[in-house]
């Protein structure tokens, strides 16, 4: 029996497995067949695990049994793609970097451990920008992930492989990581739903660190419902991550007031089609009973500049561990310190090097106060902007990205133009608040439909408000 993958969701698949419409093995095989057809061109996966069917057979034993968590839908047998910077014990993981060639992970990330308890099926590791640095997956050491909607364009990044895997029917859902928009922007480009959870709500244990005060693991799915199901499965306080927190299962009241920071939407470089769709989404929210309120957030226009100080500072620190001694690649030099220079030169790609050096610069004596100190202070002002705005409104709406998926190679020569991709998304990372990208229509270019994403941002720990409003906008039950 052929399984129709196009309209399949996690919820539908879980119910179909329970009814016995198909087995976990048949479902996994259907995805493997689709991947075999599409992945050679799209390059969403860096590796398909050789034990997928074995995992599926094992998962089958738990199909139909109640999920471990009360009242939740069973994830037994659900095939997922996992970003290459999240550790699955005994599997390779290398953040799409040559410097971790040959690395086999010694433990499970907490998010993975939780999914294993639910008996999901891990299909393979998804492509990404090297160490999650980029907005297009063009910084992967293993080639770009092409956009399933138009293969001449990028899938976005850095979690481009995760988003493309879901969009091309290569998995029912995926995990990515979001430091400045890396789940939401590729979700927007690929026409799927992507959540950047509240900072700390999902443990970072087993996620390769990029910007530790910004990083969070986030789910990608075809529907808001699927993303909520995955988020509920991976969230929670964890003894292995001192910054992890529990967030509440319920919100005090339904979100009603939607804030729009118009000041941020007047900048140049914003695609007219994106603004039109955004305004259309606001009209739809209005017709659904939401109130649209303009909010003044004077400091968020500086968010991207602040981010490009704080993030590289943390990158330069976090990536210092890759030295050819403890794991991964080793290149011989003349002496011990020369080994570092040789290994890091051979292992890191251009963007990783750029950010490591930028981080070293902004942290240097003499520049520290002017850059890192200043950026930290402005970050506080941005947080205050959010606190103040959320006194007036329940959610803040913007487009997810300033445009639709761009052509492969279009932005590679100018780092700043690539960085501007993150202009609407970095704010949530700096403030630690949750945000979701929702697919809302598309723009037709050269006969191809390029998806457009709408971003909603909520108060700390109020993911449920995002899910509520997201379901309304997309017409999900």
């Amino acid at each position: 029996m052929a399984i129709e993958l196009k309209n399949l969701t996690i919820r539908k698949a879980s119910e179909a497995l329970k009814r016995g419409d198909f087995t976990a093995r048949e479902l996994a095989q259907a995805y493997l067949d689709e991947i075999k057809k599409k992945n050679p061109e799209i390059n969403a996966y860096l590796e398909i695990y050789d034990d997928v069917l074995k995992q599926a057979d094992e998962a089958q034993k738990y199909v139909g049994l109640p999920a471990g968590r009360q009242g939740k839908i069973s994830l037994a047998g659900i095939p997922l793609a996992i970003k290459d910077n999240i550790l699955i014990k005994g599997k390779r993981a290398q953040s799409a970097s040559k410097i971790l060639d040959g690395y086999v992970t010694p433990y499970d990330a907490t998010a993975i451990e939780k999914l294993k308890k639910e008996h999901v099926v891990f299909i393979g590791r998804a492509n990404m920008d090297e160490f999650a640095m980029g907005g297009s997956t063009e910084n992967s050491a293993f080639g770009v992930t092409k956009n399933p909607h138009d293969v001449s364009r990028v899938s976005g990044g850095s979690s481009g492989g995760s988003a493309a895997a879901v969009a091309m029917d290569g998995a029912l859902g995926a995990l990515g990581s979001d430091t400045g928009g890396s789940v939401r922007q590729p979700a927007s480009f690929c026409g799927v739903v992507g959540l950047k959870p509240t900072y700390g709500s999902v443990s970072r244990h087993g996620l390769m660190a990029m910007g530790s005060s910004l990083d969070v693991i986030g789910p990608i799915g075809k529907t808001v419902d699927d993303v909520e199901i995955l988020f509920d499965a991976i969230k929670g306080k964890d003894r292995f991550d001192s910054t992890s927190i529990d967030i509440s299962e319920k919100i005090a009241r339904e979100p009603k007031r939607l804030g729009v920071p118009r000041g941020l939407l007047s900048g140049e470089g914003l695609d007219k089609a994106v603004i039109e769709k955004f305004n259309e989404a606001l009209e739809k929210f209005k017709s659904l009973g939401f109130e649209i309120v303009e909010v003044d957030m004077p400091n968020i226009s500086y968010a991207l500049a602040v981010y490009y100080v704080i993030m590289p500072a943390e990158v330069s620190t976090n990536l210092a561990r890759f030295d050819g001694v403890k794991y991964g690649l080793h290149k011989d030099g003349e002496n011990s310190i020369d080994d570092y220079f040789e290994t890091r030169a051979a292992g890191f790609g251009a963007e990783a090097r750029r950010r490591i050096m930028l981080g070293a610069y902004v942290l240097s004596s003499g520049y520290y106060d002017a850059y890192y100190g200043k950026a930290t202070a402005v970050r506080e002002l941005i947080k205050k902007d959010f606190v103040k705005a959320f006194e007036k409104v329940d959610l803040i709406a913007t487009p997810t990205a300033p445009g639709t998926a761009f052509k492969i190679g279009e932005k590679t020569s100018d780092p700043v133009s690539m960085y501007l991709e993150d202009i609407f998304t970095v704010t949530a990372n700096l403030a630690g608040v949750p945000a979701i990208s929702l697919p809302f229509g598309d723009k037709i270019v050269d006969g191809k439909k390029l998806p457009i994403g709408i971003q909603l941002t909520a108060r700390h720990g109020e993911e449920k408000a995002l899910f509520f409003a997201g379901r309304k906008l997309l017409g999900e039950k």
Partner: protein
Amino acid sequence: MITKADIEKLAKLSRLKLTLAEKEKYAKDMDNILAYIAQINSVASKDVKPEVGAVRNVLREDNSPHESGIFTDALLKLAPRSESGRVKVKKIL
């Protein structure tokens, strides 16, 4: 203005070997990026005090550690070079 010498210093601090072409490219890139970043200097932030958030350090007290050596093999196996229970590097002194 970032010079080639600046890049050489940063590369040294960052333990990166760069080619001449890379140094020139990075000097230009860094100039553009720093020009973009400079806008944060127009924000008045003199009296900003960081707020203490919900995030707290929850590290345990440094007692009752796990049994010594139980992770040694698994972790050493990952090192490019090891010898008799240790990571091996070249002679330093």
